[in-house]
């Protein structure tokens, strides 16, 4: 699975993208965020407050109960501030 990070999530984690092998038990966005926290202290710090971590699956905004699978492109980012 391809994971993308934007804005301060990217700065805190230190990479813009990473490819991960998804454990079988990770079936939705909420479980994915919890699992990503275990990858490093930087991940744990960046993802500590899930109320400010928004998620898109295949370039669509989704809630935390949205399913995820190995072929998905998942992006994690703070609330958007364009315009």
């Amino acid at each position, binding site marked *: 699975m391809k994971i993308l990070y934007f804005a301060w999530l990217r700065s805190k984690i230190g990479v813009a993208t990473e490819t991960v092998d998804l454990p079988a038990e990770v079936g939705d966005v909420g479980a994915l965020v919890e699992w990503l926290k275990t990858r490093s202290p930087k991940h744990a710090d960046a993802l500590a407050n899930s109320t400010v971590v928004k998620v898109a699956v295949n370039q669509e905004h989704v809630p935390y109960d949205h399913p995820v699978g190995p072929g998905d492109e998942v992006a994690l980012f703070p609330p958007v501030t364009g*315009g």
Partner: protein
Amino acid sequence: MTVKVQSEDFDVGAELAVMTGGKTGIGGVTLFVGLVRDMAGGESVSAMTLEHYPGMTERQLEAIEAEARARWPLDDALIIHRYGRLEPGDRIVLVATASAHREAAFESCHFLIDWLKTKAPFWKMEATPEGERWVEAKASDDTAAARWAKPA
């Protein structure tokens, strides 16, 4: 219906001319142009850098433009949003809507900028005397977008 995501500046008059050229059924155009301010939260801002999510940005802008077209009788709509490093006074975003009648143009332009601010994946980083900082989303932007929610 046009969406452009670009680093370079845009010419409002030229864009307007292209949008309305030959379309004599248009009775009015509403334009919104967003600019970089030199102050934010009481601190001076010397520059702003806009990051975005290539691919998703265009998809989201096209989706909100389609939503505007479904809600109002529009002859045309245009969204241009810049990314990269900008300075105070620089143009950030242009939203333009054209319709036979002014109400549709005014309302759809307002709708587009409100929805863009909460749905299009852009993030601003400001350079201030205290250093660089990511701009936080405002609750007032969510409130502004929510007023366009369809009645249940």
